């Protein structure tokens, strides 16, 4: 599912970016994309940032303590959402579950806003 989404989003961007007159078919433009879509490399691909953002935001909103109206991509766990250190660790655990990979303690320490969580996850190939 994730690889399909990645592939579709990549293709969509390609289609939008092209002038109408340019070519007969968007697929003809980058055959590499299509080929790569079916190769093993896609498994090591990074997740799309906007997808990560959506998933992080819904994981955080899931917390009873959190006021969902305050959760936006710029929200800081402590200053905007009023979360303490135990909450922050709980959020990291929830994100580990959501994205299927373990976040090491020395990295978890630095994740104290939605943006930082998104940046970290989007830059990790193990994230699912």
């Amino acid at each position: 599912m994730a690889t399909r989404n990645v592939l579709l989003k990549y293709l969509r961007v390609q289609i939008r970016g092209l002038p109408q007159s340019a070519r007969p078919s968007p697929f003809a433009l980058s055959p590499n994309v299509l080929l790569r879509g079916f190769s093993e490399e896609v498994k090591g691909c990074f997740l799309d940032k906007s997808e990560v953002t959506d998933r992080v935001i819904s994981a955080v909103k899931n917390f009873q303590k959190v006021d969902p109206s305050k959760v936006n991509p710029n929200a800081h766990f402590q200053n905007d959402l009023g979360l303490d250190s135990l909450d922050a660790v709980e959020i990291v655990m929830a994100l580990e579950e959501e994205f299927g990979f373990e976040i090491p303690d020395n990295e978890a320490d630095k994740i104290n806003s939605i943006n930082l969580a998104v940046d970290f996850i989007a830059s990790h190939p193990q994230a699912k």
Partner: protein
Amino acid sequence: MSLLRDKSSFMMNIFSFGRNLFTASSPLPPVQLPAPMEAHFWYILPDEIKSTNLLNRYLEILSPCEKENIFRMSGEQLKKRALLARTLVRTTLARYQMNRQIDPKSLKFWKNIHGKPEVDWQYADDWRLPPLHFNISHTSSLIACGVTVGSPIGIDVEEKERRLKNDTLAFARRYFSPLELEMLTHISDPEIQRKEFIKLWTLKEAYVKALGKGFSASPFKTFTIRLRDHKGGHTHLPPYMISEVPEIIVESCDDPENLGFGGNWQFVLLELAGSHYAAICLEQGKINEGEKTIPVNLTLRKTVPYVEDECISSAAAAVARLLG
């Protein structure tokens, strides 16, 4: 410049009160410095402070930077909490004056390389203040500040009734040491298990904060906090500890003999106001083999800065010194 002014008036109004001038602020009653191996624990209950008059007065003593930070937070409650936390730190430290009055507004702070705040005691050219160390912790319903002389201190407070989102054991499996997980697993009653988890969390958090190197330098998994029974010489894990002088100890998971661990850390665990657990950790000088560690002398004060203090004796129902 005008932007700052606008922000300043905005901040005055966030507490629904116009600008209030205090020309003659009443001095803060001075207190004695903590002795070595003594900790002072001050706390505020935010729900008890409702006067916008008073809150605006507190705003006056903060630095421009602190005011900025508060301004940037979202929501009244968060702003109030942050304001009270800074107020507690400034007014508390200012009271440990030696020979002259200290204006809480004049205190300067710096952060060590890991982000732990310390007081800049270069107060004036001709004299320096004693090496006070402090640490704060807050929940939505209690803000605390611990103070010592000459020893790093870490504190943590949590609400007793706090619920975890994750399963307690799953959390412990992920973040606590194997021994601690084992201890928690042996508790069959889920409510007791949850409470012991919270106590353990506060102790571990207080320790890491006392070390001052951040969560990543001392991952929770790498050390175990447990009790030592002097009488029997056994090591027990709560809640099975039944001893005259239960002592909380911390051990490195890799180095149980503590040879490489360095420092001798003392812990106190309290139940505060019937609603919170509070852990305090400070460093004691090295003691010799066979010597008993001296229990930490603790002074507890509930305070409303500029209004009143209440010294809480450990005999009072409001506080139970659980351990340490």
